[in-house]
């Protein structure tokens, strides 16, 4: 028996919803996958030794892997998706990587940095910044913030507290992480985190 047109309508509108839902789910999955990819590569930082015996010319290995990975997926998106969608999938990755490079500090296994180690991180951030700027529109300031943050490790305790009063770029948790990490000009101190909290609350 032939189907009534109203029945077809019900069927069709059901399919419209089903197709839309699955299509959206896949699209969001691709976006999350791009973020997960970046964070998975960044995970290598946790296991890197930043007390380096000598100055490295190259950035960290994971950065080149991340750059290559992003280039590859970008080439697929560019080929198979419209530009607006491809841009959407890459949107916010610059900010994500830069913020994560800062917030990963308390998770590092190696809590001691020397000049070479700090320079290595700065080189890595620059390498990612250069590659990402070719792939997506992004703010270079995000990666400048990473370099400024790791420069805080070069400061003495006194200079760091002075910085807390002046700078508003970083939050309390980020300053705490700096204090809990040994820099080339500063040893770990038990009283320093308490002084920091006091300073922060009196700001």
């Amino acid at each position, binding site marked *: 028996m*032939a*189907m009534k*047109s*109203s029945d*077809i*309508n019900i*069927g*069709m*509108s059901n*399919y*419209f919803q*089903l*197709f*839309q839902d*699955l*299509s*959206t*789910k*896949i*699209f*969001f*999955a*691709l*976006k*999350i*996958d791009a*973020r*997960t*990819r970046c*964070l*998975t590569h*960044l*995970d290598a930082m*946790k296991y890197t030794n930043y007390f380096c015996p000598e100055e490295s010319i190259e950035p960290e290995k994971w950065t080149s892997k991340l750059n290559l990975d992003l280039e*590859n*997926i970008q080439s*697929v*998106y560019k080929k*198979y*998706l419209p530009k*607006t*969608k491809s841009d*959407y999938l890459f*949107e916010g990755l610059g900010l*994500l990587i830069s*913020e*994560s490079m800062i*917030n*990963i500090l308390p*998770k590092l296994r190696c809590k001691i940095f020397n000049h070479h180690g700090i320079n290595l991180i700065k080189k890595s951030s620059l390498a990612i910044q250069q590659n990402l700027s070719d792939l997506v529109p992004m703010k270079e300031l995000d990666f400048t913030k990473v370099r400024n943050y790791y420069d805080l490790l070069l400061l003495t305790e006194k200079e760091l507290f002075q910085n807390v009063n002046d700078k508003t770029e970083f939050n309390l948790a980020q300053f705490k992480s700096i204090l809990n990490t040994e820099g080339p000009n500063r040893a770990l101190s038990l009283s320093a985190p308490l002084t920091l909290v006091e300073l922060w609350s009196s700001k």
Partner: protein
Amino acid sequence: VNLNMWVRELFKISSILTSNRDDLLEVAETLLKRYFQECKQKFNDLSMNLFSVQTLIQSPALYAALKKDPSWIKIYGYDRRLASTEEFKNALETYVDKVLIESINPLKRDALLNKPTDLILLTNIHDSLEWLSVQINTISHWKYYKEIKELATNWKDGFLKKKRKSIDGASTPMPVEDSNGGESSPIIKFSDSGDGIQQITIPLPKKDAISPWAKIRDQPIEAPLPSITPWQQVSFPKIHD
């Protein structure tokens, strides 16, 4: 992919054909059903270990927040009042970024889309499903429009018939004389004049029959003549020089 092409072709043909369209759409629906099941199966097979998909499934709040992303809303032209940058960012940080940064064990390699072929497959499925959903929506609207049009025509015909009956003042149709001098029922006849314009022919009543309808028919049309007021004689300024 082949099935997708089949459905696309069916949609194209159904948009050209005027007759048997419903039958074709019925076939298209069967194909859509198969296509959807196949896509879903492929997606499920691929996403079994994927962190992104599992996170989306386990956190409906993340899915809802992603739909509030201003950039996503911009792509699809949805209502911008629905956008919430904060909600979107917070959800991503809570369900994705923090989970990964704070995890002790690194994510397994198969939790990501590693093969380019898988990535291509997913982008293709996404694009095809979206294209098809737009076509389905168009067809659904067209079907509704057709049904409403039919309803409106039926209602109009019914209304005219009812009006005729009320004018005649009787429940039985008024006997009318047809072109051959006989009697026929008072139906409004539509005929094509050849140039596509429909003409309405109303059969004339019997010469000796006195009915309200005849009275109305014989009444002279008294329409007020248009009067020309002085301002209408003034020439209007030109819009374009």
